[in-house]
């Protein structure tokens, strides 16, 4: 079993190494074949491990520890060790499973790109780091995965390096993520100080210490600080306020990347982190409040922004930010099971939507503007049908997956935090609205596609349709993994060893009713509004629309409040301090010496008589001193 744990990250790593070194010589077929098979291999290993988890005694599987950082003479020994329990086991299945589907899809999508094998090397590298992140048995190893997925994300967003905007977005993603990473790093340091270890599991592991409340001596204040710092890290990775600005820009990368990294897996790492440390968050009501409010506000802001986008990928990007916000609402309301469940269902339907959008973009030769789409339903039928499924799922219409997972979140918010519930409910309504808007603009109405493209549509091949179909089926059915209303709670039972299930709420019926009503009304409004939208009405947009469209100008605020002062600081330190300050010290020294020299040089007249006079004078002075003091030379 231990070997299987190692295989999960290592197989994709080997794939990445092969593709990264000799990939270009292999040709597309072998290159993509290696990449796909390595992820499928990891998926099979993950299934084996996860099935072992349920049968094992402690509901968890540990790998052997292999030395990594060991400092002799100190207690510090940080190994490579992996741990799988129900919480990260579920994540692993999603990562490798959805990852495999997206690899298959990519083989068709990236066909003909000159960086084909490089792309698959990066993608495999991502799966490796993501597996390390969720399976890590200690915090530094988690951090390896945490920064590693950031690296993979950086490389893939900037995959088309000739494009300035792509490299710009890649850089932005990495830097903004780094801000969160620093928070995580500091949280790690404090935890090391408090818990005297960096291991997560095992007898003295941090999570074990947290679970035995009687012996725990960590104060609430410290717990709050750690929890907030952890959430800072999560906010960077999972694109929450105020660090969400990188995610919309990340859409510069190839679309399958957006589906895998920036929708299904990497961005949910923050939610995973908070759930992993849910015991710590539960110690601090303040931290939970912060998480809930940040999530709620992010969800609403991003949803408002999503309504005002024309770029099909931007709609989905803001939608992802918004859905991640809902997951944090769940965390903040103590419903960690609901959060993880939404992570799972969201991975299915958001990957489906992104890949569907990718298929549309592919069909239209790279066109992403919804104003130049429309009426595609009859032309790319399979894609249309699957995107429709995804739209229904995310809009929260029963009985598809999104309804069940979102309902759990709304219920938890209703029970614990009414104002945040308001934010979340508004978000749900807006979600339904903008998703139907996207669907209608893309597939219904009159075609606004230009003549040439319309006649030469790239129709999706099997490698595109197959992953979409599987995701479509999952989007329909996954909700029933955890649908208490119809008596199904497989998922909360599965997580029970790690996260205790919440007690049954009596508001369930009320909240569900409101949700269904809101979803239907918002969907209907959207369909009605965009049914026969005219091209002219799209061109004019009001000030409010523009304001929301630019994500409430947060990028501009950042530029003014953060980037500009920091650039100023850098320039100032380089030009003023460095040149005038530090080198000024040097210059001061040299001008003192020079000034002294200027004074003394006058004595050196060059006239022999002057020298002799001064010698005679000196002689007189010396002799008189000797005479006056009576000192005698010699003996």
């Amino acid at each position, binding site marked *: 079993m231990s070997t299987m744990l190692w295989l999960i990250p290592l197989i994709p790593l080997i794939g990445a190494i092969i593709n990264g070194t000799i990939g270009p010589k292999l040709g597309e077929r072998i290159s993509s074949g290696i990449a796909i098979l390595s992820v499928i291999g990891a998926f099979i290993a993950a299934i084996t491990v996860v099935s072992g988890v349920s049968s094992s005694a402690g509901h968890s599987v540990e790998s052997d520890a292999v*030395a*990594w*950082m*060991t*400092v*002799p*003479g*100190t207690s*510090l020994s940080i190994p490579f060790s992996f741990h799988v329990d129900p919480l990260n086991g579920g994540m692993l299945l999603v990562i490798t499973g959805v990852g495999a589907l997206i690899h298959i899809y990519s083989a068709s999508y990236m066909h003909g790109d000159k960086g084909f094998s490089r792309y698959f090397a990066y993608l495999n590298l991502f799966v490796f780091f993501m597996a390390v992140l969720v399976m890590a048995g200690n915090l*530094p190893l988690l*951090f*390896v995965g945490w*920064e*590693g997925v950031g*690296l993979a994300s*950086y490389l893939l967003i*900037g995959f088309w*390096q*000739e494009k*300035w905007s792509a*490299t*710009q977005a*890649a*850089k932005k993603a*990495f*830097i903004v993520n*780094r*801000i969160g*990473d*620093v928070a995580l*790093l*500091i949280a*790690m*340091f*404090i935890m*090391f*100080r408090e818990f005297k270890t960096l291991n997560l599991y095992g007898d003295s592991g941090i999570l074990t210490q947290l679970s035995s409340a009687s012996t725990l001596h960590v104060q609430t204040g410290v717990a709050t600080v750690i929890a907030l710092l952890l959430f800072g890290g999560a906010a960077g990775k999972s694109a929450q306020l105020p660090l969400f600005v990188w995610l919309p820009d990340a859409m510069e990368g190839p679309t399958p990347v957006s589906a895998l990294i920036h929708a299904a897996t990497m961005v949910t790492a923050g939610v995973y982190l908070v759930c992993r440390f849910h015991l710590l968050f539960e110690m601090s009501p303040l931290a939970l409040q912060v998480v809930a409010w940040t999530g709620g506000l992010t969800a609403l802001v991003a949803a408002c922004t999503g309504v005002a986008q024309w770029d099909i990928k931007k709609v989905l990007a803001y939608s992802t930010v918004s859905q991640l916000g809902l997951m944090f609402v769940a965390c903040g309301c103590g419903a960690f099971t609901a959060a993880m469940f939404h992570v799972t269902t969201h991975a299915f339907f958001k990957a489906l939507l992104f890949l569907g959008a990718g298929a549309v973009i592919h069909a239209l030769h790279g066109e992403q503007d919804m104003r130049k789409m429309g009426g595609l339903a009859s032309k790319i039928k399979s894609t249309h049908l699957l995107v429709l499924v995804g739209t229904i799922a995310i809009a929260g219409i029963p009985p598809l997956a999104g309804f069940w997972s979102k309902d759990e979140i709304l219920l938890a918010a209703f029970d614990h935090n009414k104002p945040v519930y308001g934010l979340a409910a508004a978000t749900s309504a807006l979600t339904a609205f903008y998703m139907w808007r996207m669907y209608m603009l893309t597939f219904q109405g009159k075609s606004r596609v230009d003549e040439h493209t319309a006649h030469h549509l790239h129709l999706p091949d099997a490698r595109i349709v197959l992953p979409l179909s599987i995701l479509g089926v999952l989007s329909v059915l996954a909700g029933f993994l955890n649908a208490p209303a119809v008596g199904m709670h497989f998922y909360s039972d599965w997580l029970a060893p790690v996260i205790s299930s919440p007690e049954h709420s009596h508001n369930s019926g009320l909240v569900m009713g409101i949700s269904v009503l809101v979803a239907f009304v918002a969907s209907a409004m959207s369909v009605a509004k965009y049914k026969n939208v005219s091209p002219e009405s799209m061109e004019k947009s009001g000030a409010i629309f523009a304001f929301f469209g630019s994500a409430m100008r947060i990028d501009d605020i950042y530029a003014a409040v953060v980037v500009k002062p*920091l*650039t100023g*600081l*850098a*320039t100032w*330190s*380089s*030009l003023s301090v*460095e040149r005038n*300050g*530090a*080198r000024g*010290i*040097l210059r001061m*020294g*040299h001008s003192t010496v020079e000034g002294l020299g200027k004074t003394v040089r006058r004595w050196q007249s060059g006239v022999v008589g002057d020298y002799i006079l001064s010698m005679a004078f000196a002689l007189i002075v010396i002799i008189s001193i000797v005479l006056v003091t009576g000192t005698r030379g010699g003996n």
Partner: protein
Amino acid sequence: MNELILVVVALPLVAAVLASLMSEKSTKAIAILGSAIACLVSIFGITTGGNIDRGFHHIFNAPWLPKLGLMFSFGLDGMSSLLVLLTTFLTVVAVTVVPAPKQAVRGYYISILIAGALTNVAFASLNVLLFYIAFEAALIPVLISIGMFGGADRSKAAIQFFVFTVIGSLLLLSAIIGLRIETGTFDYLTLKDSVASGGVNPSLLRWFAIASFVAFATKAALVPLHAWLGRAYVNTPTGMLLLLSGAMAKLGIYGLIRFTLPLGGEYAESLVPLIVTLGAVSVVYGAAVAAAQSDIKAVIAFSSISHMGYIVIGAVVGDDAARSGSVLQMLNHGITTGALFICCDYIARFRGSRQVADLGGIWSDSPLFSRLLLLFTFSSVALPLTNGFVGEFLILLGAFSQFPIQTSVAAAGAVGSAVYMLWMIQRSVYGSPKSGTPKQIVLGVSERSVLLALALMVIGIGIAPSPLLAIASDNGHKVSAAMQPEVK
């Protein structure tokens, strides 16, 4: 093999003499051969071990000027073993990867060989005066190198460099002489014992602590004593720069660990918070200045200030993990920054400019080179699984419990390093070439193999740092024990 250090020092010197006698064509071959044998000998010798005295092995003693107390006394502990290895290795790299300037091939190689040998003397010396002499003498070949083969601004760079380091060093010399007058010896181990037993005048120790701190902090380019660094690094020819930034600047950190803290007594301990704060300031300030540069060599030069800030923090906090991380990070900085400087040199050579405004699109015509450059960049950014992460992580982890605020500030510097390094990569490697037909960066066999070896080290140390940490901590433990006499 107790004469290890003599052999390691003598080989490059012999090579230098031979090079001055033989024809100019064979200079490079002789330099490579001499330094490579020295490197192999040092690896072999350090792994086999020698006689041991108070935590130091390979002890060797021979008189030079015994009346002055000047002895050839050498000995290695974990830290100096690693630094000697680093220096011998960097010497090989320095003479291999970068072609010498056409006008003075001989002088170029000879100055590198001598600089490396003298740096090794300083690292291995157990005689304080001998250390001082080597510490100072190693500057001479660097100054000659800057003055003869340096960049456009070379004379100014050489003068600033000289003035700055010499002022610090003279303070150090006065303190060393003071110690000799008080205790009657220049022998390091004896001095350490008598300081630890409290037999030395405290005000003298106080002066020693201050003077040696100024000297070593200048060498390590700790803000605000870093002013020489920018101009000197940018104008130093690449081969010598590898030694200057990779090995000689480490003499500053080495001096802090070896001399300032153990010989400075209680007063040196009380300086620690100040040094840590300056280290954190260096991290942030170096990043800020690096971010405002337009010359890629200057970016990396100023990034050194930032990296040295981390190393200084780890060196002084008195935590074993941080100390070991700091020693390891000295090695890492030598490898990574050296590799980046080499890359700069290649870019300048093939593209004719180091200004980011003139660069771009390197990836599209030199894929292997760009991948390696990207790897070194991420090592510099301290990405996990590269060597940079292990060092920085251990330093910050060890320092945090004592200095949470300074450590947090230093940790935040990680954002800064991402900003300037990725900016540089974006402008120079990505995008499309700016002007004219781009010249492919062609790597020769030796150049390619050295870069690949460096790349393997970056990843190898990132994944399996434990053997090196074991060597490094050997030192850390002994030195901290010496700082607390009651433990003895």
